[in-house]
């Protein structure tokens, strides 16, 4: 790789004009990133709960395959899963846009993390609660929806929030399949103007500016929700 500095005429390597040019694309990218993040979170929260309930299923025929599947997804790279879905689904005649595929992949990947969070939350519900539900002869469904889950979910909200932040920082992977999120926008901008510095730096700083306050917020939330 050649290392020549790109001189824009001034002695300064930083060009505010390039930043200004990038801003409209930047906001479009923010929109796509947040969209992926919101839908991906929804998928991972709901699918994770399904896995967590399946971990406690009465039969091994459910527990083992689900355990194997979630461990497999959790221990393999999101990027490769992304390419898998992106290239393999069309071969099975399932056509999704790149953005939909990316959202599904990120939701699926993180559902295996949220499943562990839910599981820890469910395990943390005292045994007495299960026994009380049984003593009141609540049905299986009522035990879960009225007794266990309300107590478990409250406890896990901050931890789930952390995975939302983690998901945010994994959205740039979607650039790999051409989704026009933040990183891809900056790459396109750089490819057009040959000015890599500004667009990439703006995107990098943007991630810190979103992620850091969010993590502070979550810590405050955790102090309030968890005892």
């Amino acid at each position, binding site marked *: 790789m050649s290392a020549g*500095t790109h001189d824009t005429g001034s002695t300064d390597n930083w060009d505010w004009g390039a930043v200004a040019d990038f801003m409209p694309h930047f906001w479009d990218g923010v929109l796509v990133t947040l969209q992926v993040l919101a839908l991906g979170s929804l998928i991972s929260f709901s699918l994770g709960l399904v896995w967590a309930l399946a971990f406690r299923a009465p039969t091994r025929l459910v527990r083992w395959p689900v355990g194997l599947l979630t*461990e497999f997804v959790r*221990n393999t790279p999101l990027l490769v899963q992304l390419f898998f879905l992106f290239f393999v689904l069309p071969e099975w005649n399932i056509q999704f846009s790149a953005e939909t595929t990316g959202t599904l992949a990120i939701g699926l990947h993180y559902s295996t993390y949220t499943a562990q969070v839910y599981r820890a939350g469910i395990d943390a519900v005292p045994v007495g609660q299960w026994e009380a539900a049984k003593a009141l002869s609540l049905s299986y469904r009522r035990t879960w929806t009225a007794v266990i889950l309300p107590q478990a979910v409250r406890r896990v909200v901050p*931890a789930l929030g952390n995975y939302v932040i983690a998901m945010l*920082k994994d959205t740039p992977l979607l650039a790999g399949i051409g989704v026009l999120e933040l*990183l891809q926008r900056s790459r396109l901008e750089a490819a057009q103007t040959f000015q890599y510095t500004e667009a990439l730096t703006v995107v990098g700083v943007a991630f810190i500016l979103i992620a850091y306050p969010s993590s502070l917020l979550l810590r405050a939330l955790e102090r309030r929700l968890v005892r």
Partner: protein
Amino acid sequence: MTAGLWEHWVLPGIWITVQLTLYSAALATAVAFGVGMARTHRSRLVRFFAAFYTEVFRGTSALVLMFWIFFVLPQLAGWALVPMWAAVLALGLSYGAYGAEVVRGALNAVAPAQREAGVALSFTPWQRMRLILLPQAVPEMIPSFCNLLVELLKGTALVSLLGIGDVSFAAYLVRLATTESAQIYSITLIIYFVLAFLLTRGMKVLERRAKAGIGQFPEPLSTGGWLRFRRSDAKSPELSSTGVTGGGASR
């Protein structure tokens, strides 16, 4: 898939992935201990810079950081790193920031009486760290480091987007050559899974050794079931948010 593809792309790809993981893990460990110990330093200034480092590198996306080191650093600094080392630098710096939180947490978890005993015996701060705190803290760090190591292994796949010939990049080339996606991508996922499994087993052995060294004996290896091979038991680290803000890295 032909033997040629396997021999020329996939196998060297696995080797690159392993190398990337090992080098980045070495850098990340050094950063983690340096910054983590700095976060317990007496001087407020040192603590501030260490905290600043962790928040910046945990705050940004590893992939964006990698692109930045790859494309922007050469323009600002006037020199460029070989792609492989740029990737190692990006991975090591960002996962080192996650590791620093682990080190800090484990150091703070050592009983305060131990530190006070060190003061009473007029140990210097460095002697306290080296002889009292670290030997007790390190075994506690290993389960979290194990999780981070698997996250790091998964993170190495990002380098394929920079054109470094790791196993993900090999998969991409093989897909182009054979036009069969399902086969090569399934194989690739299994390769990563096996690597993660080996790393986890290795770390479990290391944990047992380290704990035995300070007179603790965790449960034998076989319990817990092989399916749940990453630590998610014990004090349910999933419920603590302090370390989880990163690339899916559970503390």
